[in-house]
């Protein structure tokens, strides 16, 4: 598993032009592609910044087979 690095995550946020509802799917895709999963910290952070509930984002993530919420072991 690639280790989650806050700095790398911040860089992805910048690349996506900040956090917005409009770019959330694209940003989470980048997080998945970079870290190999969407870490819980990211879900929490994005929920706080977009106003979505954590459950909504988590629920959607677990519905897609190419999103992982836990790192591969």
């Amino acid at each position: 598993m690639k280790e989650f690095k806050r700095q790398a995550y911040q860089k992805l946020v910048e690349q996506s032009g900040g956090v917005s509802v409009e770019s959330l799917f694209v940003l989470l895709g980048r997080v998945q592609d970079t870290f190999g999963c969407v870490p819980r910290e990211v879900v929490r952070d994005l929920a706080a910044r977009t106003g979505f509930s954590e459950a909504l984002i988590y629920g959607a993530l677990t519905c897609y087979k190419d999103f992982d919420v836990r790192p591969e072991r």
Partner: protein
Amino acid sequence: MKERKVLTRRVGKYEPLDLKAYKDMGGLGGLRRALDIGPDSVIEEIKLSGLTGRGGAGYPTGLKWGSAAREKKTPKYFICNADEGELGTFKDKVLLDGDPWAVLEGILIAAYAIGAEQAYIYIKGEYEDTFNLWGKLAVEAKKAGLLGKGILGPVGLQVARGKGPYIAGEEFALISSLEMRRAMSRLKPPYPSQQGLFGKPTVVNNVETIANVPVILAEGAEEYLKLGVKDEPGTRLFSLSGDVKQSGVYELEMGSGTLRELIDEFGKGTISGRPIKAVQPGGGTSALLAADSLDCSLTTEGIRKVGSSIGTAGVIVYEQGKSGVDIVKGLMEFYGVESCGRCVPCRIGVVRMKEIVERFSDGKGTPEDLEQLRQIGKACVVASTCGMGQAFPLPVLSALELFGEDFETVISKVPA
């Protein structure tokens, strides 16, 4: 029968990121003309050209744009659907990789015509190289002033990558996906042009549809109408695959030949040389055609007359020696796990049909199974919400009709 390269004329002729080369080959002419004549005339021009959607449903593009442009709500969104998940269809990748600037030009013209400030391109998850290319392309386009605060006013492009579901190719499921919700379809109306992404007017167009737009504007609708046949102008990209010697993507003028000619001349016949058993002319969800109905013209109408549909123009060939049961099993294994679960007929029907087909494949079918397969299939076709539920039973139902004896054989061999 000859290929008529209109959309694919530049494919592979330039480095994908080289905007200058694209311009030298006549690129951006459509965009320039669009800016000259204004959004309303662009929509009129598209309506006049008779362009229809190339993603399967075949809805007139001009009407879609017109109704989104009429909406008062802002902002508006434009989405290019590059999530080609349909079985046996791989034409969009050719355009996305081989002539990406033309697709981008089409996206810009569409966004300009409907008044959208934000555009998306939703690329199939499996197309990783295409996704990476488009990420770089968006940066190049921004540098050249095509995106961002450019010549059109502000237009942004988000390059999104699909995350697996087949259903995300359906326009509402795609929209849900971009809203970071589960990819699920929903009832229409309201149509996306009224209430789409984030509840705002949205137009969703297939890649091939969008690639037609610069051609129409650069050359004018009158010129474009000279391609193809009277009611169906233009060309189609046929993805030919299955048991043929030479699979590939071939661009043909509408109505320029028959299905059999396409398979014989471009596909060079079947792999083993055995005769053809069945053909799906429009991707994995189109009804099977038997070998005797292949002399139909390659138009929407021509294929409809023999009992199938042109759909995504993904032609899948099956040769003799395969049982009808095997053909259907392969398809149901794919669709069986892809229902989004929104509506009952599809959610339950697809699984039950898959189970029954698997029973036949294991040599355990009964006459009741056969009847149930028919009934569930018909119920799904009439009662499902979106295109997937309405279409996935079609190959099964047509197989029962055309190759019923394959199923009967299984039943007759079941030990009493």
